[in-house]
């Protein structure tokens, strides 16, 4: 894992510095932006943010899972999941900055998104 974790506080700080709004107002706006994106996805509408990426909600069918502790088979009910697909700009930005840098990040690949 790499060092730092960026949180809401850091985003509020960035808004405060770059836009020059008060900290209180910056914090409220960060919340509004996240809330607006979430509401949209919960409504089932995709959110496309150019040069950043796309959030969509996707239905998943019922499947058989396994309790990893007991090994017992259990049905997993159909559900909706939120998926983020990063834009090519974001992918290139991240890969370009880190490849060959030896920065240690998670190598696990347990996820179901194998987008290249």
């Amino acid at each position: 894992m790499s060092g730092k974790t960026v949180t809401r506080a850091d985003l509020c700080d960035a808004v405060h510095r770059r836009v020059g709004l008060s900290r209180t107002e910056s914090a409220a706006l960060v919340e509004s932006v996240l809330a607006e994106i979430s509401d949209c996805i919960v409504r089932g509408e995709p959110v496309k943010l150019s040069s950043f990426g796309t959030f969509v909600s996707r239905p998943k069918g019922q499947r058989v899972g396994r309790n990893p502790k007991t090994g017992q088979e259990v049905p997993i009910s159909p559900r909706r999941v939120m998926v983020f697909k990063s834009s090519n700009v974001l992918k290139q930005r991240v890969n370009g900055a880190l490849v060959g840098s030896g920065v240690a990040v998670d190598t696990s690949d347990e996820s179901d998104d194998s987008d290249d």
Partner: protein
Amino acid sequence: MIKSELVQAIARQNPHLYQRDVENVVNAILDSIVEALARGDRVELRGFGAFSVKNRPARIGRNPRTGTRVQVTEKYVPFFKTGKEMRERLNGGSPQAGWRG
């Protein structure tokens, strides 16, 4: 919804702000996330989700058409994990849940 519609929606809720400022707010948020990921940092937004970077080590791949082996170089990819609150909202949990107070 696209970015300009997001900006408009936020501008409508904040009539005292210029739309240009709202645009800068949205860009400041997205840029901060991109910059953090480009440093290899993680961005954790409770209730919404967390952005992180994963490393895909170099491997020997195969051209699926010809079957020839090709060296695939190491790469870093952005990754998003949906937050608990968000997951619950998508599956009929409380509609306007907690973190927004």
